């Protein structure tokens, strides 16, 4: 017989603590997993038609409203989002989100300034979405996009995906 014996009292205390630990463990695993699940969820990417862009004038950012399907989370209806289509003189196409890179307020094109203006904290972006004033740390995000030519009409149609081309 070993010199150290476990008294009945000690045994009961240890088993009670063990029980409390087991309960904590059993409740934590599903709860923490449930809360953290969105981090590991796969996004569902879909292409959405924005519209024909042949008539968008060069140099003037033109807003389109798109019913954007959600990429993750419990199923719910699409959310209206703005797609700014910008054609610059060098024949380049910029497809910008109007989400300020500072605090994600909605920016709008201000014709009198000739810049995108964020109403929240006065952030400014030039016509191609580069941050040029105020607190924004980075340019406006663009939408992942592609253009297709409608075979029937021969017109250029813009489509965007429900994701930005970079994280902001």
């Amino acid at each position, binding site marked *: 017989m070993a010199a150290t014996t476990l008294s009945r009292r000690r045994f009961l205390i240890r088993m009670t603590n063990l029980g409390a630990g087991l309960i904590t463990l059993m409740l934590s695993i599903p709860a923490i997993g449930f809360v953290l699940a969105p*981090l590991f969820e796969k996004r569902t990417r879909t292409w959405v038609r924005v519209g024909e862009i042949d008539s968008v004038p060069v140099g003037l950012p033109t807003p389109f409203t798109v019913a954007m399907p959600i990429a993750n989370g419990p199923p719910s*209806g699409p*959310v209206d989002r703005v797609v700014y289509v910008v054609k610059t003189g060098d024949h380049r196409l910029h497809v910008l989100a109007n989400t300020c890179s500072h605090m994600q*307020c909605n920016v709008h094109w201000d014709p009198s300034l000739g810049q995108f203006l964020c*109403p929240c*904290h*006065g952030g400014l972006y030039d016509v191609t979405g580069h941050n040029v004033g105020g607190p924004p*740390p980075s340019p406006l995000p663009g939408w992942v996009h592609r253009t297709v030519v409608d075979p029937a009409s021969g017109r250029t149609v813009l489509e965007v995906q429900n994701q930005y081309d970079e994280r902001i």
Partner: protein
Amino acid sequence: MLRFLSRPVTTRTRSAYRWFDERTGSTELLHKGLYEAVPEKGGWAYTLGSATLVLILLQLFTGIFLLLVYTPSFSDAFPGLDYLRRSDRFGSWVRGMHLWGAYVLIFVIGLHMLRTFLSASYKRPRELNWVTGALLFFLVLGLAITGAMLPMDQAGYWTLVVVTNIPHYIPFIGDGVRHLWRGGDFVGQASLTRTFAIHIWVLPFLLFAFIGAHLYLLRRHGEFGSWVNYEVTGADPDKELAERIVRAEPPYPTRRIERMWAVPRRTVDFFPDQLFKDTVISVLLIAVIFVFGYLVGAPLSEKADPATLSYVPTPEWFYLPLDQVLVLSPQTYLVFVGAFALVGAGALAFILLPFLDRSRDRAPLRRPEVLLPGLFLAAMLVLLTVLGASRLYSL
């Protein structure tokens, strides 16, 4: 039973109460709750704590009633509240009281903190009274901001977008925190569901746990009051203090404190003296909420439009200082410095005040090393609020 019914009504009531009391100990409980000594001077200042409690209970009360109409749904939340505005006088009154209750609550908590700060009530052994109180203040601010997100009008939606975006400036884990709060990359139904759960369960649950701790600690150490209650007037201070300690009424003498702060010179009974003052203040505050909740009510802007190009989001008045900090920190790393390092350091210093202010003095003018930074902090908050307000109204 027949014998019981045949007795006069007064005797019957009395014996029914005795029956109940023998089984529950209700009289003893009531005595424990109501009979305690409170410092004699400054009773009106001590009403602020009980007023805070009453206002929090009022928020619980009006909040439960709002669940009669509110659905945490991106598409259905706004129409429910819009219906209140157009067709339900009493419902919009309750909603108005919930908003004005929140405003008055934040204001009264500010006063409560100010008076505790000035009287140095947080010193040994009441450090944890202050710490729990400071945490309660932050919980209330959390409730206020999550509550502002729920109506799904333009104001609520853009509050949800901007506030859930702030955590992403935290290094390394920021994106994850934002993603978890929103339940996705963008604000959507999941963001509202999660915020709703935080507002009606998570924060209130923590709030009431900390209120329990705060009240327990108050009853354990007794109301400190302020330095004016502890003056020694006799020729022999030692003898006077010793006599006070001998004659102290519960919950005094305060344990683990310097002798001179152990027992107030004179005390009054909590019931009815202090409770009367508490009631007067609570009646006045609730009357303000009652009237403003009806006359002014709670605003409701247009239905949330994530694709708006014209709506200008404005923060609630109690978040103007933080909003102004965001304006003044122009780049990513500065947002971190401004919104997290500076504000976080200020908040930490505020929570840990009892461990920073180690002097034995309690009168505010004898503690300039604490009073001046405190006033500086308060002045900064006022200045940032004024700057923020003038910026918003000039845009």
